[in-house]
């Protein structure tokens, strides 16, 4: 009785708006996770149709089906969609849906940010689809090498869609990564120490930190290339001191971690599903965690293996070749731990396990060919041939799509609360697996016979005809298999019978709730004392439903969850979540206008949209700020905790910390690019430098001192001084730009504009934040709520001050030294 009453009360508090309106105003992670996955599957279908066009074109020699102008768009968009609009969002969708449920929380750290990220993904993805339908899609290959992708090789709007649309979409990746990091570190069930975390959470944490450090180089590259295309700033033009190779470094500095950003979540799903299928615990939990972390770290040290043929000196090649083979070690550790887990347990051949076996067969081949191409001389031969095409599909489909299909079939009963009809599943499985190997296995050989990737058709007589025909026929078999999976899932969602709560006998908290899950996840938050909580205490779901955990009482009539101490999992403070709102969607639409203005060169729209975004962000922040504290409130089990309003490290501070990690990586990539110019690029040093006068240096020092000390006073007046300090720093930046008035002259001038512009932008952010703190003092917000927001402002002010000194210094130092 009490359980049912609690369910009704919590459902009323947590429910999304009814009807179609709910889609646009929901901030609930279960809804948004499903929406992410649905949209990602839509993009998979689009990318798949493009793949079928490619295989139709290449089925026979001298095909006249597609000309190069269309074929180039088709293969570029196939890669772009599968990487940016399918693979990453699928991870985001799974993580958004699952993480709070695995961790024992009621939602992710920043529910409205989840929604904002989702809508950025939808709007940015729509831009890409629009370009495809209008036949003006990017056509320079998915890694967009300039000068081919710049004005020289692509004068039309095509490349702009890529640079602007994908950057827009990447907001969602960064937002999700910040959210996942903070959620895993702080939003767990009480008692869940780091060593008791479900293994998927470890993988999600590593992946999220990798997104925060892997995506910024690409975002920087995209901004630089768009600046070159739109304003003729010569970042990649050798004649004016730029270098086309800088793009490749920035792109693969992102692109190789990206491969592991895609693989690690899949490995997390495998590490979760495989032990359940084998009815045993995971062998070597600590080793798996160490391997995942090692993989994450190592993956940043081997981007150059995509550039073995660009003329890197031999010693550099040897280093990156060694690093590239070394990355096989943590992969092997995971692989053999999974096999050991199978050996330890008694595996059952359910459909998820079948997909995992397909993963083993496929991914091992992809890994072995990966080691082959890490050996430099072999790469010199097969680079940019169909050998690479085959290798990367073995890794990505074998290492990502197959485990994700295992995950789909494993969690489908959770999504739907229904039993799945497995009669279509095995048929679809065999069609996909046989179709896949039929498509790609022989393409390795085509590559060795000299078939280059990206050719729009081929001449007969090279021994490629049979291989390509088999590949094309098989690819259609694979497509039929995927269509059957779609039908299978739709039938399960609509028409199957209701199933049991935990059909697989899982061990993690996601199976401790009724399915489909209620909007609040857990009727009360469990106290966790084991790594496999459901196996340690089979009665846990009933205890949760009876309200025996934390926050089972709904008297305060608002959305609440608990945060814990990072390492030990001891409960720390209560977080009150926001209610349903259409605001995130509206704000992402205005953000979209900013990108649309850039895309269509309607530059009058850009500042308007920017003002709109800033105004909305201020409104968002102002609504978020606590007015008054409420002291310690009872959270159940005899414990009382304060709310996030009164702590020094509120979620916003943690979010800022990790956003600044991404931001710092962006800035570091910029400095890397600048030093790359100095050491590698032709036509350096530049003809003239900017030099800062003594007055300028003095003003900069004054501004930094004011900004950094002002935020440390603990009073509104101090933050007002900090605003003045940031304005002084910005003024010095304006002076530097005055000295290099034309950013189109040389890559030096263009880079100075970006460095100094970055510095000025961050003074604007810091000034706004400190202004908000000053306004709080005027509005009379309670002193007990002062600490958290002030520390957030201080974090951004410190960051802005330090990076401005570095950026200005880098800009004017050559002048000072010469």
């Amino acid at each position, binding site marked *: 009785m009490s359980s049912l009453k609690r369910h009704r009360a919590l459902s009323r508090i947590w429910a999304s708006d009814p009807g179609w309106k709910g889609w646009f105003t929901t901030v609930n992670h279960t809804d948004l996770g499903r929406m992410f996955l649905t949209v990602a599957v839509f993009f998979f279908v689009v990318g798949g149709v493009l793949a079928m066009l490619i295989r139709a074109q290449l089925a026979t020699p001298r095909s006249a089906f597609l000309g*190069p*102008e269309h074929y180039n768009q088709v293969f570029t968009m196939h890669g772009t969609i599968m990487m940016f609009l399918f693979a990453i969002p699928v991870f985001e969708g799974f993580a958004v849906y699952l993480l709070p449920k695995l961790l024992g929380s009621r939602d992710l750290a920043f529910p409205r940010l989840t929604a904002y990220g989702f809508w950025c993904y939808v709007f940015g993805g729509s831009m890409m689809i629009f370009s495809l339908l209008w036949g003006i899609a990017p056509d*320079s290959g998915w890694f967009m*090498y300039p*000068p*081919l992708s710049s004005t*020289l*090789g692509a004068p039309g709007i095509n490349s702009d869609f890529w640079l602007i649309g994908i950057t827009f979409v990447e907001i969602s990746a960064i937002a999700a990564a910040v959210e996942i990091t903070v959620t895993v570190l702080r939003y767990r069930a009480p008692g869940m120490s780091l060593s008791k975390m479900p293994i998927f959470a470890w993988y999600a944490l590593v992946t999220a930190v990798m997104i925060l450090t892997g995506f910024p180089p690409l975002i920087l590259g995209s901004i630089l290339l768009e600046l070159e295309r739109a304003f003729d700033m010569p970042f990649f033009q*050798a*004649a004016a001191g730029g*270098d*086309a190779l800088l793009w490749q470094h920035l792109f693969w500095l992102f692109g190789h971690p990206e491969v592991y950003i895609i693989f690690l979540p899949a490995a997390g799903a495998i590490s979760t599903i495989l032990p359940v299928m084998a009815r045993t615990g995971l*062998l*070597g939990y600590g*080793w798996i965690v160490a*391997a995942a972390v090692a993989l994450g770290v190592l993956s940043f040290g081997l981007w150059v293996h995509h550039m073995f*043929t*660009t*003329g890197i000196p031999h010693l550099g090649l*040897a280093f990156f070749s*060694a690093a590239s*083979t*070394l990355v*096989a070690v943590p992969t*092997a*550790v995971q*692989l*053999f*731990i999974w*096999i*050991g887990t*199978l*050996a*330890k*347990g*008694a*595996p059952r051949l359910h459909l998820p396990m079948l997909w995992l*076996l397909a993963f*083993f*067969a496929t991914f*091992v081949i992809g890994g072995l*060919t990966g*080691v082959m191409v890490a*050996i*430099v*001389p*072999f790469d*010199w*031969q097969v*680079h*940019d041939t169909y050998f690479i095409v085959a290798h990367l599909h073995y890794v990505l489909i074998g290492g990502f799509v197959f485990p994700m299909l295992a995950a789909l079939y494993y969690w489908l009963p959770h999504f739907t609360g229904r039993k799945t009809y497995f009669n279509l599943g095995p048929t679809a499985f065999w069609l996909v697996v046989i179709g896949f190997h039929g498509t790609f296995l022989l393409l390795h050989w085509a590559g*060795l*016979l*000299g078939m*280059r990737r990206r*050719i*729009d058709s081929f001449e007969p007589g*090279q021994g490629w005809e049979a291989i390509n025909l088999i590949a094309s026929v098989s690819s259609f078999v694979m497509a039929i298999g995927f269509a059957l999976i779609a039908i299978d899932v739709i039938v399960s969602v609509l028409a199957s019978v209701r199933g049991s709560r935990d059909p697989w006998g899982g061990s993690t908290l996601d199976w401790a709730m009724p399915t489909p899950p209620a909007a609040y996840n857990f009727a009360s938050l469990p106290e966790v004392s084991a790594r496999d909580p459901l196996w340690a205490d089979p009665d846990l779901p009933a205890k949760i439903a009876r309200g025996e955990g934390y926050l089972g009482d709904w008297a305060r009539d608002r959305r609440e969850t608990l945060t814990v101490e990072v390492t030990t999992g001891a409960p720390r403070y209560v977080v009150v979540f926001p209610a349903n709102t259409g605001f995130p969607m509206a704000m992402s639409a205005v953000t979209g206008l900013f990108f649309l203005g850039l895309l269509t060169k309607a530059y009058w729209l850009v500042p308007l949209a920017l003002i709109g975004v800033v105004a909305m962000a201020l409104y968002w922040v102002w609504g978020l700020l606590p007015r008054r504290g409420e002291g310690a409130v009872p959270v159940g089990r005899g414990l009382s905790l304060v709310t996030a309003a009164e702590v020094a490290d509120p979620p916003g501070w943690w979010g800022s910390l990790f956003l600044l990690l991404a931001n710092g990586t962006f800035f570091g990539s910029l400095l890397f690019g600048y030093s790359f110019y100095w050491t590698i690029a*032709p*036509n350096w040093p530049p003809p003239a430098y900017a030099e800062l006068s003594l007055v300028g240096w003095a003003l900069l020092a004054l501004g930094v001192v004011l900004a950094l000390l002002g935020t440390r006073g603990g009073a509104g007046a101090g933050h007002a001084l900090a605003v003045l300090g940031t304005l002084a720093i910005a003024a010095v930046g304006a002076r530097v730009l005055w000295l290099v008035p034309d950013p189109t002259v040389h890559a030096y001038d263009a880079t100075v504009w970006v460095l100094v512009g970055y510095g000025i932008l961050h003074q604007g952010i810091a000034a706004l934040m400190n202004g908000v703190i000053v306004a709080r003092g005027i509005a009379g917000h309670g002193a007990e709520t002062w600490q958290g927001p002030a520390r957030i402002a201080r974090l951004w002010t410190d960051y802005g001050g330090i990076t401005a000194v570095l950026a200005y210094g880098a800009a004017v130092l050559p002048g000072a030294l010469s």
Partner: protein
Amino acid sequence: MALQGCEETLSVVHPAGPAASAIASLWRVLLIGATLIFGFVAGLIAWGWRRPPGAVNERGFVIGLGFVFPVVVLLALLAYGLVIGERLLPRAAPEVVRVAAEGRQWAWRFSYEDAPERETENLLHIPAGRPVDVAITSVDVIHSFWVPRLAGKLDAVPGHVNTLRIEAYEPGRFAGLGAEFNGRGYRAHRFEVVAHEEAAWQAFLRGETP
């Protein structure tokens, strides 16, 4: 030479020069090794599947199979790859011939250190049996210079000059490709290498042949 099978003109596994030969034998080693490892892993999974449940040797799986096994295999492979890589470098030697290749959309222009006045389009002349260093660059977008039967590929990057060592064992004609996607004309971005015997090479340098 002229009777050579058509299917082999772009084949990496039908080498006609020392660099391509070294890489072709590297490929055979890689293929055999990968097949053995794949068979081993597949066998291990089959064993693990059929084995009755019970504790396994965790250190054996993690340290033995996860660490020692790949480290030993990879170190051996790396050493082999480095040795081959060293052999392919364009080292100074008295008999080296120097030519230059300049890529553009969608053609190649070749020039010759020993005959500065000569320039050829989409046809590179070299002497057979002598090492040739090709200085590769581009005037527009990035291209890649690749003669599959002679050597690996190397990119033509605007503003940079990369040097690739190629050599043909015997006189003959060898197909060459632009091997970096470079826009609409990519498919037809091809060239040919003709390797002359010594007398014909000297005649070419003197401008006696076209």
